């Protein structure tokens, strides 16, 4: 058959030329990622140095650093940028503190036969929609909502919509991303290390502080990459439960249609922060445990 022998010839030709094979394999994904994605990112950040026509809002391609100067000098941008970094840091710390005991339970304390089920219980909420979870909190935190109802008898009430609610919701959304790496890290912890620590006379708290914590630190760092970068880029949770407070994502969103160059300049803030954070975490070797 001619088609079969043609296929055979093509296969042979490919087999003899590994560079050609490599080229054919890489052509499509690299065109996509380098040209379509990285290309448009590059143009976006280039446009941060452009400006807009004040009347038509059209982008004018004249070189200027005005956007970055505005970014650094206008107090509102500085405040919002610092606030966003603060929110991302707070979410990361809260998640680490909450995730550690939970992961301790699922990886060390719970009966081994129950552990796979617990992991499924931690994974399931990750598949539930982001918006649905944020919406649930919008209901919970509402004036006269479930939280007010639950806290009422104690004389307390819901924090309402605002920055506290944003931190709470983001910490809730990204908590599984912190628990799972720590759980995986604790599972790999050799049991005899803990026994040795106990044999040397260390009490529980001492063992946790001197053995467990240093060993799971890379896992915490790996989880923090998710909690930090996901929080820093978020603009939806703020729109849903943030009331009138704003984060850097909202400023980007607000400027997209009227002043794209300024939005692009604002966009460099989370991108640079995330890249710096990734580099710092990579130096600690935590990304290898992902």
């Amino acid at each position: 058959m001619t088609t079969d022998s043609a296929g055979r010839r093509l296969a042979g030709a490919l087999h003899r030329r590994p560079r050609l094979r490599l080229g054919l394999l890489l052509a499509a994904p690299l065109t996509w990622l380098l040209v379509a994605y990285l290309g448009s990112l590059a143009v976006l950040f280039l446009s941060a140095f452009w400006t807009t026509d004040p009347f038509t809002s059209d982008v004018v391609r004249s070189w200027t650093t005005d956007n970055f100067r505005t970014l650094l000098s206008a107090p509102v941008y500085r405040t919002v940028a610092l606030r966003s970094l603060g929110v991302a840091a707070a979410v990361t710390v809260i998640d680490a503190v909450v995730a550690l005991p939970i992961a301790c339970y699922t990886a060390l304390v719970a009966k081994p036969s129950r552990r796979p089920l617990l992991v499924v219980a931690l994974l399931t909420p990750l598949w539930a929609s982001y918006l649905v979870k944020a919406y649930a909190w919008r209901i919970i935190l509402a004036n006269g909502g479930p939280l007010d109802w639950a806290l009422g008898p104690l004389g307390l009430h819901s924090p309402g919509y605002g920055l506290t609610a944003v931190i709470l919701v983001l910490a809730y959304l990204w908590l599984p991303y912190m628990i799972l790496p720590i759980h995986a890290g604790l599972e790999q912890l050799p049991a005899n290390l803990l026994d040795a620590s106990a044999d040397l006379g260390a009490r529980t708290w001492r063992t946790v502080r001197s053995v467990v914590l240093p060993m799971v630190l890379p896992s915490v760092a790996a989880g923090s990459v998710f909690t930090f970068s996901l929080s820093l880029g978020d603009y939806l949770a703020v729109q849903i439960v943030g009331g009138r407070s704003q984060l850097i994502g909202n400023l980007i969103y607000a400027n997209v249609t009227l002043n794209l160059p300024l939005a692009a300049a604002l966009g460099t803030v989370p991108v640079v922060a995330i890249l710096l954070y990734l580099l710092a975490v990579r130096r600690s070797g935590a990304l290898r445990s992902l």
Partner: protein
Amino acid sequence: MKLSRRARITVRIIAFLGLAAIYLPLLLVLVNSLNADRSFGWPPRQLTLHWWTDAWASTGARAALWTSVRAGLGATALALVLGSLAAFAVHRHRFFGREAVSFAVVLPIALPGIVTGIALNSAFRTVLQPAGIGLGLFTVVVGHATFCIVVVFNNVTARLRRTSGSYEEAAMDLGATTFQVYRDITFPLLRSALAAGALLAFALSFDEIAVTTFTAGAGVQTLPVWIFANMARPNQAPVVNVVAAVLVLLSVVPIYLAQRLSSDTK
């Protein structure tokens, strides 16, 4: 681990409270979809299935669901092809810039969705629109595929790393051509990894809102975009509540499929 009794109990209580805190909001969504009160006051005084029949009739929600499914399937198909091509290249070949390829694959998911969204938006408007392709479902699929490549790539590279090349070498020694080896040896070995990657890619696409907002044309509404647009409208609240409840219930499906997949590979 030799933890003191008190420490064990403390850890157990905290873990129990933590898991309860994770699940209570989801449970609340389910209960609220049955709340008979029009203004959804809390606690619900009466339960009803009325909103569920209302939601079933909501054309907006159904159209949005269908759009989401089509966008998810399109993005998954593209990500499967591009992700496995890149995985083969990185795993089977040594070349200059290999690390950079792995990095470029991860970048779309590491950067904030809004940045990816506006970058693609301005690129589409300057490159595709003059060519007659406006923003629409197609651009949504392209945008979603960009950040879905990474999950297929990761799953396939992990599987390639664990399987030895000796089956393929044996097949080639027996005279099989490159394509025959792929069809009869490599693909069957990769099948469950590809399925896991596809599952994750579809879920990522189905849940995405930031990139969708900036790549969808007028009139193209995926389910998350529809929920977000209707969340603050009191007259749509009953339908939004039911849609939210359905999405919570549906999140069990991928977990079940993932369990099936992992038991297949063992």
